[in-house]
């Protein structure tokens, strides 16, 4: 089968798909905001693996995927910094980190 061949771009892409789906499941199903943010990190991680693997197997000398991955890591570090600051702001107001506590704008 394709997955047992010498390790190619396909193996990395399959791994990335599985990781992304796990992150998607976590982000949609968890009620703790911290767990949701951690699942988002899983998804970002899956995307970075994909970028690096594809760049490695198509144009290794260009390293485009590596630059994309570095900047994506910076952005996701900033994102989780802000996200957790929001969680803390929520916690100070409501004394909880449950995502159901943020329902003020629900129509």
């Amino acid at each position, binding site marked *: 089968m394709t997955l047992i061949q010498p390790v190619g771009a396909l193996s990395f892409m399959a791994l990335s798909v599985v990781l992304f789906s796990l992150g998607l499941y976590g982000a949609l199903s968890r009620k703790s905001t911290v767990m949701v943010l951690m699942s988002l990190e899983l998804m970002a991680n899956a995307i970075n693996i994909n970028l690096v693997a594809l760049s490695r197997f198509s144009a290794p000398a260009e390293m485009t995927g590596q630059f994309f991955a570095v900047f994506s890591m910076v952005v996701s570090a900033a994102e989780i*910094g802000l996200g957790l*600051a929001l969680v803390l702001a929520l916690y100070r107001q409501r004394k909880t980190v449950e995502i159901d506590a943020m329902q003020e704008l629900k129509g």
Partner: protein
Amino acid sequence: MVESVTADHTVLLMFIIVGAIFVPLTLTASHLLAPSKHDERKLDTYECGSEPIGPPWVQFRVGYYVYALLFVVFDIETVFLYPWAVAFDRMVVFVLAEMIVFIAILAGGLAYAWKEGALRWR
């Protein structure tokens, strides 16, 4: 330029294997060799030799978070400084200006946190 990906990292692999063996080995050795005489004081949580006060799970102040975030920001700055330093002698002086602008922008963030009093230790 390395020839094969795995051949290059044999040392790293050996390091990981030895490290993974070392920890359980020493723990088992100390478990087997040390005499085990327990009393209440010995089983207590170690806190510089004095008796622990209150539960070990304490809640920190929210103000600490800003320190953690400052750590993240300057951690990323270090990450960019490393390839900059390695490749510096190959490049024109312009990259020096680039890095100065980069550091200046981040220092602006530090100055803002300072001005807002987020760094005051209370």
